[in-house]
């Protein structure tokens, strides 16, 4: 079901990993046969062991798995810590610290059977107490990941290796939604004063780590270098052949590329799209490109009475008219944006999530066609034959070539007569501006954390309130979508659920609530000798890295 990116995965993808592929929607048990297969597959692997050094733009700001819910942190810590379940190369949910899980009767929650014989890096044994402790820690007010546990009412220790997560309503997606919920050792955390994630000052878990994962933390110099070594006692078979892995953050893209091309580092992500050709043309280097799960879209001020940044239209908001929004969608030539700015690496998008994720609506795969004349007609029908001017807010350091895309959009809209004043700013102030309603139109990228259609509905389509629709800056509101969210979250029958999601996708398209532009590409560059698995969530997992 995950078609994303698979064709571009390296063909040396470990067979064992391929055997683990499971659908996101289906729960699974880890069979003894699968273990046997993976063991034989792995014995054929080269034994040559290597030190590996890789770079990214951002340093993981903490080693505490519950302190910051941000991709650089979660991605990095997934090498050290593990959850009850984990995601495979194709994002499928597979067993990790839990060997199996099943729904409790009447949708009362989920029962997880824990793996026996697992030890933390410091040698302590893993059991249900650690799960309960980690749940309490991650769901505490000091945690930034507590929203994952919003549906959970209680966690019950059944025995040493069985735990029940009770939920108020049926929750078919729950196991997949906690793939990044990482388990700490209760004694280690309590013994070092790290019972709770650090809030204002640091605590022991900020710079130290003790997980069960394939790598353990050997050295941490925040912002400069973080050193990992393989965990010899890992419960799973190691597919990598590394003896050491060193991460360096390199903020300047040109410097990072130079570091790769000079051979000082083995891998970097991301590199600028325009440099892909340059890297590929050099001997000894290669680029792995795929699609991320992030859709870039334009949003409107649906609850704004008037335009805020117009030079002449100060008494009305033309975007309240769905025809004007459709005109915007038709005026933008996504194919040319893709060709010139994204170098053909992006993929036009029709919905709030990319094709291939669970819940993507096949019935609504068409995006409005590019037709500047039709757009002009629509604008005339809506009463704006001469167009109008407005403000387009845009980040300039958040998404790939975000500012260039906004400027191209402005130029394309100018051709149908509406003039966008682009205000591009660093992301550090961007969300604040959007929350303060300082926009007429804005650019937003969204990657569903659960890899399911429910996620963007919850955050982008539901009428905004304290808990839901929190990223629906424009205040789009549809009573029907609000009504459908809860059934979608609880429906176990897949066809019935998809019908509801299709209905939501239909409303969003008909209303042109957002203008989805394209799915953002994922560009990783490395030495020829390095084999990796590119997961569409842009998590870089060392356990799949081999250096020949």
């Amino acid at each position, binding site marked *: 079901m995950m078609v994303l990116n698979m064709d571009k995965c390296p063909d040396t993808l470990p067979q064992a990993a391929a055997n683990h592929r499971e659908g996101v929607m289906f729960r699974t048990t880890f069979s003894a046969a699968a273990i046997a297969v993976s063991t034989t597959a792995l014995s054929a692997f080269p034994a040559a062991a290597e030190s590996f050094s890789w770079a990214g733009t951002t340093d993981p700001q903490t080693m505490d798995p519950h302190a910051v819910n941000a991709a650089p942190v979660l991605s990095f810590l997934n090498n050290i810590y593990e959850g009850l379940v984990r995601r495979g190369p194709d994002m499928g949910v597979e067993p990790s610290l839990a060997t199996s899980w099943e729904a409790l009767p009447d949708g009362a929650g989920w029962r997880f059977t824990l793996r026996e014989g697992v030890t933390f890096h410091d040698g302590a044994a893993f059991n249900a107490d650690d799960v309960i402790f980690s749940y309490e820690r991650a769901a505490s007010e000091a945690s930034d990941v507590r929203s994952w546990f919003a549906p959970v009412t209680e966690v019950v220790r059944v025995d040493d290796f069985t735990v029940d997560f009770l939920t108020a309503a049926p929750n078919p997606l729950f196991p997949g939604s906690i793939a990044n919920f990482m388990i700490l050792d209760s004694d280690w955390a309590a013994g070092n004063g790290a019972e709770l994630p650090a809030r204002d000052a640091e605590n022991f878990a900020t710079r130290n780590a003790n997980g069960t994962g394939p790598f353990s933390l050997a050295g941490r110099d925040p912002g400069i270098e973080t050193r990992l070594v393989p965990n010899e006692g890992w419960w799973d078979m190691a597919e990598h052949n590394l003896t050491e892995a060193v991460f360096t953050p390199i903020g300047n893209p040109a410097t990072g590329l130079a*570091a790769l091309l*000079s051979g000082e580092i083995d891998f970097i992500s991301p590199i600028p799209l325009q440099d892909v050709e340059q890297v590929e043309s050099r001997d000894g280097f290669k680029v792995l490109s795929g699609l991320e799960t992030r859709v870039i879209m334009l949003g409107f001020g649906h609850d704004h009475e008037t335009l805020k940044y117009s030079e002449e239209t100060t008494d009305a908001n033309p975007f309240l008219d769905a025809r004007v929004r459709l005109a915007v969608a038709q005026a933008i030539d996504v194919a040319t944006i893709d060709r010139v700015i994204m170098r053909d690496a992006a993929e036009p998008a029709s919905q709030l999530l990319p094709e291939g994720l669970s819940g993507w609506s096949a019935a609504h795969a068409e995006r409005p066609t590019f037709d500047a004349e039709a757009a002009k007609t629509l604008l005339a029908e809506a009463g704006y034959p001469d167009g109008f001017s407005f403000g387009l807010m845009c980040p300039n350091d958040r998404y790939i070539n975000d500012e260039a895309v906004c400027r191209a959009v402005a130029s394309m809209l100018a051709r149908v007569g509406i003039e966008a004043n682009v205000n591009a700013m660093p992301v*550090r102030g961007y969300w*604040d501006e959007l929350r303060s309603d300082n926009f007429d139109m804005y650019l937003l990228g969204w990657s569903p954390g659960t890899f399911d259609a429910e996620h963007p509905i919850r955050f982008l389509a539901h009428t905004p309130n304290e808990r839901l629709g929190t990223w629906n800056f424009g205040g789009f509101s549809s009573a029907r979508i609000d009504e459908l969210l809860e059934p979608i979250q609880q429906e176990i029958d897949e066809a019935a659920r998809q019908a509801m999601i299709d209905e939501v996708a239909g409303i969003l398209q008909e209303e042109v609530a957002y203008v989805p532009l394209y799915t953002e590409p994922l560009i990783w560059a490395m030495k020829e000798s390095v084999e990796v698995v590119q997961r569409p969530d842009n998590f870089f997992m060392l356990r799949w890295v081999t250096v020949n």
Partner: protein
Amino acid sequence: MVAFILKRLVQSVFVMLAVAFLAFSLFKFVGDPISQMTGVETSIEDQERLREELGLNDPFFVQFARFTGDMLQGDFGYSFRTREPIGEMLLSRLPATLELGTVALVISLIVGIPAGVYTALRPRGLVSQSILIATLIGVSIPTFVIGILLIFLFGVQLGWLPTYGRGGTVEIGWWRSSLFTVEGWRSHVLPALTLGLFQLTLTMRLVRAQMMEVMRTDHIRFAIARGVPWRSIRYRHALSNTMIPVITVIGLQFGGVIAFSIVTESVFQWPGMGLLFLESIRFVDIPVMSVYLVVIAFFFVIINLLVDLLYLAIDPRLRVRESV
């Protein structure tokens, strides 16, 4: 003398307070730290609670008083982003910046002074003119372009020198130095050249101008008339007279090198204070930005004080005026 120093110190404290105030008020507007500290899925109420806990909802003057109060007690607070103690953070980044600045300064002197002397003695020569034009072009290209060019030329194409970072380090107490390893020295070359280029040009032109002026003064002319050998005139008489103003200016420039190493550090991923500062801006790490600013201002105040004291020591006439 003591009164002068005391007076200056009191003035300096006021300066530092002003800087702290500026620093703090400035960062109210850089962006929203909370949205940088939390994930996309964090609910609005959880964000508000964090804001309350960090005291970001307190009135500005309450926050400012807390900030200065803590700082005066030697407590620099904690970073929003990493939650590390800021004093420790800055201290661990300080050696990288100071070493880079020093090496840059030394390069600029070793190359700049001889080049200045040479171009002063042969002002019309082809080599002199070439040196002058080349350095002028050098300082006319933005630093960040120069840095990247050097990286690609010497790091990638020729493969002679490292492209980023400071190489191997050796710990001497808390001071982590990269001046004791070969790799560390190799790492210094490109960033120090980039950072020192402006200084180099400045030093060269300063030495050249001073030298040309001194060569025309009476005592040199007298020495020539007396038949003192040329060599001796150039290096004993002329150069030594040139150096006093040059050294003063260079002393003042050192502070500038430290403050302006921000761009160089970001291009070379040099793990110094400037890089830390840029990262802090990106993540709206208000406490780190504020403390960085105060620390930099402190350096400047001290350097200025030292330079003024040096003046006093060299030129007794100034003493009279300062006391008026």
